[in-house]
């Protein structure tokens, strides 16, 4: 039993282990080496016949070989177990190209989502949300807003009247301006946003008889048209992206003076001019202005000491713009196939 022969055992054992093709064969090999009558076991037993000196050196050598063998067999055994498991699992093959079962998630209506997007912009600017009734007193809807009796808006052609005397389905969210002023009761600043339904006797691709508006009102000392422009620019960038350009044009509303409309870059042609924007490159997005002194008075504020601005924005128009829809009526048909298209991410986490 010389040292050289013992050294060659490692190679011999490794070769045999690698040759074993199954766990059973591996067990046989293991037995040949480590079993009760295995080569290593036998050699260990034979140590006692050696001299004390040889017994120590050969003993150390044998111990090393034994540890090597234990590791070798354990490692190989693990490998073969894994292979065996893999083989079994491969029999459980499943056609993963089958369509997945989608989670049953619901979806908020695009109008709700756009409304919240707008609300969020203004809440961050320190506006509070206010509401008013849809069945509105004619005084709040018309007179208080400086809309005289002969104004076309008061005609049966344009407004829905109901069988409650003196009441009308509000034609805009503007009456909430007056209600908010009365609620704030002279306190400053007034900084409110009023989302809600409004009703007009119109029905075509760009008008529906029931629609959603957002009204904003700011009253404080020293509020100017420049503040209004600044606010609207921030809003346009927040809602439509930093690349958007704005343009302001004089306009007329009975309850603001001066009044102006805001145009933004046409989405279809990006300002180059097309049919959608009548070749101007601009599309109108909202009406606004400085609160008319009489309206301030009607709300209980003194136009000599405070001033304010207001604007009204159609939520549908913004929804159409953000999602790229050209027919307003589609939004209220509640067709699931149509609405399901509003699921994918639009690049706006807040929407």
């Amino acid at each position, binding site marked *: 039993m010389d040292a050289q022969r013992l050294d060659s055992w490692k190679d011999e054992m490794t070769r045999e282990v690698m040759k074993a093709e199954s766990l059973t064969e591996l067990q046989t090999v293991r037995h040949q080496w480590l079993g009760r009558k295995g080569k290593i076991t036998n050699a260990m037993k034979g140590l006692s016949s050696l001299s004390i000196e040889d017994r120590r050196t050969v003993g150390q050598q044998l111990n090393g070989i034994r540890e090597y063998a234990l590791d070798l067999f354990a490692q190989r055994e693990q490998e073969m177990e894994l292979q065996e498991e893999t083989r079994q699992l491969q029999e459980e093959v499943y056609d993963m190209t089958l369509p997945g079962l989608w989670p049953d998630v619901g979806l908020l209506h695009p109008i709700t989502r756009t409304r919240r997007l707008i609300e969020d912009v203004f809440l961050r600017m320190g506006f509070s949300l206010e509401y008013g009734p849809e069945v509105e007193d004619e005084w709040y809807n018309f007179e208080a807003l400086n809309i005289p009796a002969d104004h076309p808006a008061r005609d049966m052609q344009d407004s829905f009247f109901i069988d409650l005397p003196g009441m009308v389905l509000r034609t805009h969210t503007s009456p909430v301006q007056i209600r908010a002023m009365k609620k704030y009761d002279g306190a400053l600043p007034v900084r409110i946003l009023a989302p809600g339904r409004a009703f007009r006797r119109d029905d075509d691709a760009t008008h529906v008889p029931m629609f959603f508006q957002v009204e904003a009102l700011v009253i404080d000392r020293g509020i100017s048209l420049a503040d209004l422009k600044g606010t609207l620019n921030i809003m346009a960038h927040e809602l439509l992206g930093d690349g958007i350009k704005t343009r302001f044009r004089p306009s*007329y509303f009975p309850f603001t003076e001066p009044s102006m409309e805001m145009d933004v870059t046409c989405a279809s042609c990006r300002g180059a001019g097309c049919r959608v924007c009548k070749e101007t490159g601009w599309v109108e997005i909202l009406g606004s202005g400085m609160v008319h002194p009489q309206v301030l008075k009607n709300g209980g504020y003194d136009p000599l000491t405070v001033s304010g601005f207001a604007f009204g924005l159609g939520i549908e128009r913004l929804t159409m713009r953000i999602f790229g829809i050209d027919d307003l009526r589609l939004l209220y048909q509640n067709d699931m196939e149509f609405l399901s298209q509003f699921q994918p991410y639009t690049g706006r986490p807040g929407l």
Partner: protein
Amino acid sequence: MIASYRWLQRFVPELPSPDVVGEKLTQLGWEVVSKKPWGLWYEPVELVEITKRVKHPHADHLSLITVRRRDNVLTTVVSGASNGFAGDRVWYAQPGTRLIDGRILETVTMRGIDSPGMLLSAHELGFEAGPQDLWIWDGDQPLGTHFLDVLGGMDTVFELELTPNLAIFGQNMRALSRELAASLSLPWNSRSTEFSYGRVPMANVIDAQACPIYGLAEFRIKPDAVTPLWIQILLKSIGQRLIHPAVDLTNFVLWDIGQPLHAFDADKVDGKIEVRNAVDGEVLATLDGSERTLSSYDLVIADQNRALALAGVMGGSGSAVSLETTRILLESAHFDAQRIFQTMRRHQIYSDAALHFGKGTDPHAVVTAPAQYQNLLAEMGILEEIGPSQMIGIIPPSRQVPFNPQGIRQLLGVGWSDERILDGLERLGFEKGETGIVIPSDRHDVEGTPDLAEEVARLYGLDEIEPRMFVVSASPGRPSTRVSYQELIRNSLAAAGYWEVITRSFTSPSRIQRAGMRPSPDVINVVNPLRDEETLLRPSLLPGMLETLESNRARRDISLSLFELAPVYTRETPDFWQYDELTVVRTLEARKRYPRPDSPHLLELKGTLEWLNQKCGMGLSWKQVPSGPEFMHPGRLLAIYRRDGSVVGYLGEVRPRIAQRYHAKRIGVWFMRISDDPGVEIASRIRRPMRYPEVVRDLSLIVPQGVSYQTIWEISHQLQSSILQSLTPIDHYRGDFGHSWTFRLVFQSEDKTLTDEEVERVIQQFLQLTQDLGVTMRQ
């Protein structure tokens, strides 16, 4: 309103290009709907001279007319004209020319002879030139001159949309050009002279409030005149019809300076004119050919016998001028805008006069307009004599408003100097007066500092105002608690798999009945609905929701889970006629799907209610009831209660008979009123996780008919066991022995591992109590 670039040039000769004008108009607040070239179709029409005229060999009423064109080219055409002889110069259009009526000229063969092109009458060119067939031209232009050049070349017409404040003063070229001149810093020719009224008593104004100023002037003219071509051209370019000179001139003045004039044939007027209110039932035949029955709300111009005209709106046919008229009675008046507007609306006569008077006209024009009319008659050479005239009422003194440049700066947020502000106002026709700013007499829209601010802002352009941002306090804004709570409900339902829909607030009795509901007397009706299906404000969301199911399932068989949280309307509560309702609908039909079918169950809807009630702290409770709303399935109905015990809604199935109307076999519905005040303060109670293992026991019980799960669950609660954590049904079948339910009981203790004996003791107690109900263990 249509504006002509050429017409505007009358006032501002140095007007820059139409493109610049268009941009300026937009900046000034005039919405340019379109900008189009005008006159293109006149381009191919050329001046020719007739060299020969012979009879057509095969037709008595036709002639062969040979004309000499530019460069001595000769062309012979067939013509039916009665005039046009050698030496006359006429207008010729060659084949390919598009005529104003849209026809395209071709070479036609007339009685065997080719006729390349056509000699034109004034009418065929769109103009009036008196009673003649071919338009014999007496101008000295060279042969080959294009008709377009005679017109002064191409024009550009702007279609403008006027906001109501601009319509008050701006529906005329004079005002429009004043705005342009001001914003372009160009000289403006105001072109106004005053008529000197006489003092002949010709009229009585009975209602001076409705007609504060009334002017009448008589002009004697030669009959059979023709309106000057330059006026015809301008009127045509803005789309006006040519009628005859006396009317064309009033029309011209209307669009030139904004003052509607009315010309009566003086020979058809009997005695003095009266401006009075109509007598109820009085009849007037108006110029549009209608008979109008008037009321005392209408103001009329009358003579001693009858109403001649609906004041400020439309003349009567009985006193209309004609080609034979030799004495014109010209009315130039100032009316109360409201009165005219109301009459216009009442009779639905949207005449140009009414659209001007109804907005408010310049009182000073009562004096300037007749002067202009007189000058035009003179220019035409038909004015023979200025007859008697009278003006009743006085031109009001010009109004002044205080000049408050600081107020203007503050309102606009600009640093413009006093001088700059004043300069802008002066360019627009305002003046600095003794006590403030003198307002031009046509600017009824201007009342105070905000209006003046708007004027300078328009003039210099809103782009000149530097945007800024008011100071915002650091505290964020607040949403309302009530609405945030509703948003939580919306979010929760969307998370639970329901799709939000938004339906219209309108419905109708038949739509309500179709859903099996009865129209309540408390509904609010729409007085002027758009259509029969939308005659009232919905008292419930349900009909609209069922219709949404229907329209979605009409074309494809899909399962739907929908909700809407929106107002419904009722007159039952005074002062506030709406409250918020939540309605959830779900189709309950299994749908084949691999690897397992999708089979929605009514208990999932109930589960959503239970979950939402907990998630949103709604404080609701519910109880199975044997009856409720008629349209609901009576065997599967829960009434939902608020804390105070009042019913707020129901959950169950609609009767299958009704569901079928909406293309579904079974529909689960849940509708309830959402309280305005969530008012729920729930202390959060969070427990540590249990550290000891749970023990699970499944019990199969035979449960007699009529014993509900609720009863069994209540018994498990009577045990007051601290270790029985839950009792859940996990299996059910029905056999000849009755119902068999398998319940899973879960036991767990907070402070120890449970022994079998402890669990068994509770189970025995439970079985003992349920035995009294007739419940037995299944063997």
